[in-house]
């Protein structure tokens, strides 16, 4: 038996509507958690990532023993948390002898694991250790710039995947209107070798220059670390296709029969269908002359009488 469950309060209803799938999606939330053992550096990394994404991140403080993202059974807990917190990105940190300072960044589609990247953190430098002018500190929730340097990001598959995941993780809300005064952070990623990426977070300083475009200056503020790509799992093709589907309504329709001319401006073409003058229906039905009508009526009655007699 299936029973229909509706929320009993308006607040619950609003929450459910927020979590429902939509045509244009809101920003993705991130879940930050850690496994059985973590090191000091890893703890610092996780807290810094949480601070960078304070607006739309959830950080779990307890350790989770039964999460193993790369194993087939070990992702159920992750999927459950993703369902409960409505987070489609997660950052899972763990530390072991074989994989020291390990971070697994993953994405979910429909609360099931979509893809995973496992990276090791080396040479971590935290926000507190960088000294800079406090006025430049970037605000929470500002839209960042990204710079990806190195040919590894185009050629090596793992680095391509990492680039996608990092963009997804740090880009914030997708907006169509941007206030230029609020730009103050940059993420710089350099592919040093085929599996190592230098990741830095810098504050942006816009200086006056002669033209409309200001001169850009980068000041290193935030965490900087070396990311070593260890393992990764790409999404399978069918799932990838489904996740990249764009709804029919959002594809911009081309305006037909409109063109622009330098002389005349905007020109439109109108197509007039063929007018069939002979077979057009008139507003009044032609009845004919009175005498013809009288005769026709008389003929019709005769016919009727004849039919009746036959019966």
């Amino acid at each position: 038996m299936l029973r229909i469950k509706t929320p009993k309060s308006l607040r619950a209803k609003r929450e459910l509507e927020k979590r429902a799938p939509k045509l244009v999606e809101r920003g993705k939330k991130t879940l930050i958690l850690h496994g059985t053992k973590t090191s000091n550096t890893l703890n610092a990394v996780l807290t810094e990532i949480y601070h960078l994404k304070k607006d739309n991140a959830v950080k779990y403080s307890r350790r989770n023993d039964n999460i193993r993202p790369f194993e087939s059974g070990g992702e159920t807990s992750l999927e459950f948390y993703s369902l409960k917190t409505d987070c489609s990105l997660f950052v899972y940190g763990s530390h072991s002898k074989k994989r020291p300072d390990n971070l697994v960044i993953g994405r979910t589609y429909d609360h099931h694991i979509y893809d995973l990247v496992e990276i090791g953190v080396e040479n971590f430098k935290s926000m507190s250790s960088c000294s800079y002018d406090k006025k430049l500190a970037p605000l929470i929730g500002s839209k960042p710039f990204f710079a990806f340097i190195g040919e590894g990001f185009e050629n090596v598959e793992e680095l391509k995947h990492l680039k996608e995941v990092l963009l997804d993780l740090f880009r914030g809300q997708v907006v169509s209107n941007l206030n230029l005064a609020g730009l103050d952070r940059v993420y710089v990623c350099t592919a040093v070798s085929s599996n190592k990426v230098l990741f830095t977070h810098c504050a942006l300083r816009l200086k006056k220059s002669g033209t409309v475009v200001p001169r850009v200056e980068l000041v290193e503020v935030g965490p900087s670390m070396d990311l070593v790509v260890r393992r990764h799992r790409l999404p399978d093709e069918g799932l990838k296709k489904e996740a990249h589907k764009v709804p029919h309504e959002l594809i911009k329709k081309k305006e037909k029969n409109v063109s622009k001319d330098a002389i005349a401006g905007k020109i439109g073409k109108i197509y007039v269908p063929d007018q069939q003058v002979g077979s057009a229906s008139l507003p009044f039905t032609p009845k004919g002359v009175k005498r013809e009508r009288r005769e026709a009526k008389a003929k019709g009655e005769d016919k009727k009488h004849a039919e009746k007699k036959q019966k």
Partner: protein
Amino acid sequence: MGDEQGGYQIDLGNLAAFGPHHQFASVLDNREDLLKECISHGTKLIQAVADALFNLPSTEDASGPVVSLPPPSTKFPREKPLPKPKPLTSWAEFAIKKGIQNRKRDKRVFDEQTDSWKRRYGYDRVNDDNDLPIIEAKMTDEPGVDPFAKRRSEKRQRVEKQEKNRLHNLKAAAKVGALPSHVQLAATALPITGTQAAPRKVSKDELQNVAGMAATSTASGGKFDKKLAGEKPPKHDKKYRKFLPVVEGSGMGSLEKQQSDKILNKLMAKNSHEIFNVGKAVDMYNAKSDKKRRNQQGKSSSTSSKLKVKKSPYKNKSTKKSSSISLEEII
């Protein structure tokens, strides 16, 4: 927009710049130098993005210049599947067919009786059924029919009909998979397999079996359980032991003689060919001899008998007869 600006690819929608053509002249050992070079190169890339960004047409806002960003060129996967289009409800289909427009109704309606503005629904509403003091009788009214009760029952019918239609619409939406976001379906009985399908209907035999099991698990064996109207009586509700009458004649049909004859016939081999299953005995004999032959062959090449698993001397493997004789059955 995926512009090319001085050898960099720019994604304006994401404010990202990709500079794939940079070659590191030498692998710099010093980390400081490496970082500095990264930052300087990053600055160049960001300058390129800023060039493109600040050249977009901007509108002045209170907090600063606002620019309309183009959509991002790098594609990202969605986090949830696309919402399915809802099927039209039966009223919506009817409205479209008839060309009925949806008109917005006022919350307050003027009430003629009290000459005041009242709500359309809710507390202190306009045409409340409870407020009617008098209902005038019409020619079509039957005598003996309570008009107030009639009104109430009509309203109840209307409400039930509406509820039925609402459930019908929800079912149609659920079939397509386009339930509204605040409605969830909950299974009241969880299937063991964990699938979402509703459990199938139980058959009559299964119900009888289960009822029987429940009955026997009671202290009195289900003998004194109250039976429902249509339930059948238990299959064997009498005693399981049969005692012969104390006084009885000793003629041909005497029960005691019959009883003892039955036992003796089963024990003695008078009808043994009916009891003894020849085929099964032959099979067992053949299997045993095969096994012995195989073991003997194995023995000639394999380990000594000391290392072999010793069969327990206590078990007796007498040939079993097919029917088991129990005294209870006879008596």
